[in-house]
């Protein structure tokens, strides 16, 4: 069939007459001049319900009267087609957004008899637009649309707020304060191949501070093909960057600390799995960290006392001296500090520090040995020295005998013999005393009460003191715990000091002298003191009192007393000091640090 141009095929015309009204994807309603619905298509009915016989304002908006700015009313007046945005209410009462076309239908006399309202729902599109706009503006990162010149065409709120009005500026000026584009520009890559890119960048914020960004670019294509703009989204990750850098630094620092500390350090999580086992721990326990890290072997390394304390709900424990066993079964003395980390009642992990005491122990032992050797050396020198007086006496005896013989004086000869006798006796006493002194004697220590030893000596000398008209006093702190000492040795020391003190009182010009024996404990040190108000000693004598084998008691002393005292004190790891003022008295002080006292077994073995 031939159709002239402008003719509509009959089938199409028929379709238009009957089906177009129903099949067009719009809502169509026809109203008369009274705004009453004349006819509506099914689409319309689906949205707004059946409008038959109702007013359009009722149907569209649930109103009782004509709308104030009724577009249909104006079309009835001027016969013009109008397109408007309308917000109405659908049949379920929800607001709906429409684009409405009002078109006049003229009657034969040319008046507008009806108005056809064709509308389509744009509710979804509108809300999408709004959402996207909100997203664009309010997303907490910088979003900009840039063109192929890398100029910002549109910027979101955060970008505007941070960098000010940037539209028209180059993005590299804004973000990085650069004068030319970046070599690794992600936007250029996107422009080149239409793909999205994401990368890290470092720029400068408007305060001139270094700022780190994560930048993503994506093409903005309208129809899927050609595009002239790129959307660029940048997140300021400076804080995150700084935090992670700090974290890294902290971690490095921690690593160095853990690996370089001389103390063995072991940490476990709440299940007892080892997560830290440093080099010192490897050396101490002779265990490779690879064998323990990540394994539930934490308990193996903890001292029994620590596990017990933790079991009873403790949170930390310090043991100045305990022992551990290394993988070869060797017992090693250590100083231990352990802590359990708790979150309220729940255990979340634990850490333990071990200080290897072997070297310190060795040094301590060496020091004691050295002190003892020095004492022996001094003793030998002092022996020779002490003999000098006796030797002089013997020399004298011989000289006097010879002199008596020469001059025929029996009296002199006898005197000389007496001198020889006396000095031979003295040397005998000295040698006996010296033998007992130098015998490889090691203190036989037992746990004893330091106060009762002193009190025994005090009782022993009370009579002797009274006879010499000396007041003997005793002062004792009453809460001193037992200590490992050789009670006989300590007895000897105190007896020597008291006997010396009483002698010093004898030599004193004063006739009411006092000797005070005291015992006390200060910071783990047991202190014996013997203070007299006797004659005191000159500086030169005081200096020689322990280091010289001398006596100022003429024939009455061997000069051994203080040497023996000092030797015993040294064997007990203690020290003895003297303070003296001539004419006022002397004070001898013996100090025993508990930790240096000999142990009842073990420690003495090596010295035989």
């Amino acid at each position, binding site marked *: 069939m031939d159709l002239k141009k402008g003719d509509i095929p009959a089938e199409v015309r028929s379709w238009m007459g009957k089906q177009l009204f129903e099949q067009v994807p719009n809502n169509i309603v026809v109203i008369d001049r009274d705004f009453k619905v004349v006819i509506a298509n099914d689409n319309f009915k689906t949205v707004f319900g059946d409008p038959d016989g109702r007013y359009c304002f009722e149907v569209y908006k649930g109103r009782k009267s004509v709308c104030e700015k009724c577009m249909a009313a104006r079309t009835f007046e001027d016969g013009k087609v109008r397109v408007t945005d309308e917000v109405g209410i659908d049949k379920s009462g929800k607001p709906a957004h429409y684009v409405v076309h009002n078109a006049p239908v003229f009657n034969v006399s040319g008046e507008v008899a009806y108005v056809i309202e064709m509308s389509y729902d744009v509710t979804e599109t509108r809300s999408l637009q709004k959402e996207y706009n909100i997203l664009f503006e309010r997303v907490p990162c910088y979003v900009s649309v840039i063109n192929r010149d890398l100029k910002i065409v549109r910027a979101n709120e955060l970008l505007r707020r941070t960098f000010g009005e940037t539209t028209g500026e180059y993005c590299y000026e804004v973000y990085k304060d650069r004068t030319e584009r970046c070599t690794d520009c992600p936007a250029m890559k996107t422009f080149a191949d239409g793909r999205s890119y994401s990368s890290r960048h470092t720029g400068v914020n408007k305060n001139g501070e270094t700022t780190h960004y994560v930048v993503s670019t994506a093409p903005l294509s309208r129809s899927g093909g050609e595009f002239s703009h790129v959307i660029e989204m940048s997140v300021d990750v400076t804080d995150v960057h700084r935090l992670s850098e700090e974290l890294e630094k902290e971690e490095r620092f921690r690593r160095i600390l853990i690996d370089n500390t001389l103390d063995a350090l072991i940490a476990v999580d709440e299940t007892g799995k080892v997560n830290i086992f440093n080099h010192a721990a490897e050396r101490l326990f002779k265990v490779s960290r690879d064998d323990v890290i990540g394994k539930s072997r934490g308990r193996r390394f903890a001292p029994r006392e620590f596990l017990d304390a933790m079991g009873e709900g403790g949170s930390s424990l310090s043991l100045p001296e305990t022992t551990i066993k290394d993988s070869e079964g060797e017992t090693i003395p250590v100083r231990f500090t352990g802590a359990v980390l708790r979150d309220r009642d729940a255990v979340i992990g634990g850490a333990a520090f071990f200080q290897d005491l072997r070297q310190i122990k060795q040094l301590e032992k060496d020091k004691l040995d050295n002190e003892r050797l020095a004492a022996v050396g001094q003793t030998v020198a002092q022996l020779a020295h002490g003999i000098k*007086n006796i030797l002089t006496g013997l020399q004298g005896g011989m000289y006097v005998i010879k002199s008596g013989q020469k001059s025929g004086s029996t009296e002199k000869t006898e005197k000389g013999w007496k001198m020889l006798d006396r000095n031979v006796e003295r040397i005998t006493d000295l040698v006996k005393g010296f033998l007992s002194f130098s015998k490889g004697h090691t203190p036989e220590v037992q746990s004893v009460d330091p106060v009762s030893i002193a009190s025994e000596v005090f009782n022993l000398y009370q009579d002797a003191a009274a006879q010499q008209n000396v007041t003997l006093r005793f002062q004792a702190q009453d809460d001193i715990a037992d200590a490992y000492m050789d009670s006989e040795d300590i007895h000897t020391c105190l007896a020597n000091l008291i006997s010396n003190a009483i002698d010093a009182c004898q030599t004193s010009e004063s006739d009411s002298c006092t000797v005070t024996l005291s015992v006390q404990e200060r910071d783990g040190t047991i202190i014996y003191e013997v203070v007299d108000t006797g004659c005191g000693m000159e500086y030169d004598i005081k*200096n020689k009192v322990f280091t010289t084998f001398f006596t100022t008691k003429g024939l009455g002393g061997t000069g051994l007393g203080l040497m023996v005292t000092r030797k015993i004190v040294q064997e007990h790891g203690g020290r003895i000091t003297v303070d003296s003022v001539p004419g006022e008295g002397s004070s001898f002080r013996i100090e025993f640090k508990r930790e240096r006292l000999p142990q009842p077994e073990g420690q003495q073995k090596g010295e035989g």
Partner: protein
Amino acid sequence: MGKKIMLIDDEEDVLEFLKTALEDNGYSPLIAGNANDGLSIIREQMPDLVCLDILMPGESGISLFQKLRVDPDLKKIPVILNSGLSFSRDLKHIDYLKLEDGRTIPKPDGFIEKPVNIEKFVDLVRELTS
């Protein structure tokens, strides 16, 4: 009557020894068993020489030596220090020539160490009193 030599020592036997030797050599020894008695005798007798032991109970020989050296009447008397101490080893640490008030006194005129070489002692006495 020989020159008066003051001997001070707490050891009786040493006193007897030195006294005999000095008598044999024509001196007139004076003896005292401690510094205090010694000083009284020195003031009384004004000896030609004092021989002094260092370590004695009560006042030491050093202290008496210092007293002699600062006493206007006694400072001219020659003094020999006599001791079982080693002068080179033990005494060098004691600054006994410096008094508490800062004054320095002349050193002793001689030393003898025990055991005593009696010939040397007598020679020294002779030298210091001639």
